[in-house]
């Protein structure tokens, strides 16, 4: 049971399977250093290449602006961008919260009621398959222009990975362990809390991580129809003004939000799974 979930986490986590006492363990801190530095180097190299190509090719800045130009005009428009970022961030975070709460509720209920699983799960997958670009205007027609409908929209379209992984985790608890806890006097609810939830946590965090990778995009799309401020609105406006540099600036901001959320899932994992923390420390 546990080895299974742990393997699954490792696929998405960055830790390579290494064993305590193996030669790898000695170079462990160096590995950690490189895991952070090597992607940074790649980013710097890419930006450098981009800058050089634009400079040498004398590309029209309204087609492809150079990184330096993006930075300069982004800085000049920083007030505007900050306002847009705040609005989008609000939708993103509230949407994330809504998605987490809904996923936890739905997965918990489904784990208790098997017949509902067959009924509700296809509906959730269907909801995920409806393009947000279609849903967004409908939500505005139905519920109006306020932040509420957008939060619900972002939540609905992004809750699936967490719901599925959480449900799978809850159901993957060892039936023998459940029987043992039952013999110790635990109720079904107690077995849920003491066995199913801890079994599900590592897998659920993976689901959450996948969610953070696209929830910002969902929030931006939700603004495309009917919002007053936000990164999506900002990008649309600047695109219409041929301010490609400002479009790119907004893109970088949204990437930064996504990466930060992604990194925060590791912090959450560290806080929630102290036993995994210790196991990884041993393996490093």
């Amino acid at each position: 049971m546990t080895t299974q979930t742990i393997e699954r986490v490792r696929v998405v986590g960055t830790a390579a399977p290494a064993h305590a006492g193996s030669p790898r363990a000695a170079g462990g801190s160096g590995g950690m250093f490189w895991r952070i530095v090597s992607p940074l180097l790649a980013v710097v190299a890419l930006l450098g290449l981009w800058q050089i190509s634009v400079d040498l090719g004398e590309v029209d800045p309204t087609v492809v602006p150079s990184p330096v130009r993006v930075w300069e005009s982004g800085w000049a428009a920083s007030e505007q961008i900050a306002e847009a970022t705040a609005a989008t961030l609000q939708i993103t975070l509230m949407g994330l919260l809504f998605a987490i709460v809904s996923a936890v509720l739905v997965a918990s209920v489904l784990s208790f009621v098997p017949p509902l699983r067959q009924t509700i799960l296809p509906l959730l997958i269907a909801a995920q398959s409806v393009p947000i670009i279609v849903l967004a205007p409908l939500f505005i027609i139905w519920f109006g222009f306020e932040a509420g409908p957008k939060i619900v929209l972002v939540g609905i379209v992004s809750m699936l990975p967490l719901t599925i992984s959480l449900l799978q985790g809850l159901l993957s608890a060892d039936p023998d362990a459940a029987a043992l806890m039952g013999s110790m006097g635990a109720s079904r609810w107690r077995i849920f809390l003491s066995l199913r939830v801890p079994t599900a946590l590592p897998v659920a965090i993976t689901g959450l991580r996948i969610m953070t990778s696209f929830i910002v995009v969902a929030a931006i799309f939700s603004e495309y129809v009917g919002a007053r401020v936000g990164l999506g609105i900002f990008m649309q406006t600047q695109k219409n003004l041929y301010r490609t540099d400002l479009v790119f600036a907004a893109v970088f901001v949204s990437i930064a939000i996504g990466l930060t959320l992604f990194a925060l899932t590791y912090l959450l994992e560290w806080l929630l799974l102290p036993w995994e923390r210790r196991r990884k420390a041993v393996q490093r």
Partner: protein
Amino acid sequence: MTRPLMEVDGISKTYTSRLGETKVLDNISLHVDEGEFVSVIGPSGSGKSTLFSILAEQLAPTSGEVRFHGDRDRGAPFSAYMPQKDLLMPWLTVQDNASLGLVLGGMRRREARMRIAELLPTFRLAGREKAYPFELSGGMRQRVALLRTVVQERPLLLLDEPFGALDYLTRTELQLWLADLCAQQGLSVVLITHDIPEALFLSDRVYVLSNRPATVRMVLEQPAARPRPLSYLETDQFTRDERRLLAELTESGKRHLTDAA
């Protein structure tokens, strides 16, 4: 002082599926007196696990009866059991794994931890209370699982091949230690195993099961006082019984093969 604690009276178990009926247990009777160590030994696939589940009150026999004599907490099972897998929760430390039965039974966590702390030295786990299961050796994990079982203080302990997955030396070490523990604490134990020396060395009485459907083919009394010294392995009683059991268990294996052909 030897009053019967559990009496198993002619139980049979038949599983019914679409493919038909499979009889797993056939008219099995056995008993455990207070403070006794009783083993059930049989070839693999003989229905030991089914018998175990019935004794643990997780499965009802098709016919026959299991009677328990003694105090039991309201609604709680009569016995505490230790399954083949240690089933330690990877997210709980040694002390919390060991106190799981107490906490789920309604005891406060602090109180349960204190109870466990008293028993850690006896189970050779002193100083490891904050360790996680993955940090323990196989033998230690089994001792934590056993501690979790014993500390529930149920009238009867059920052990299902508790040392099956361990290497020979660790297993022997734990068998010797278990012999001392059970004798000291006067525990009443049913051990299910396929390890002949283990059954003979630890038990007051050994029930030998046949192949499926399992019947009791033989009952061996082991009158020597427990805990026994290692030299018990050299006694005539031990070697004779070991030979008899080997003949019995492998003979029934042969008969099973000819039946199938």
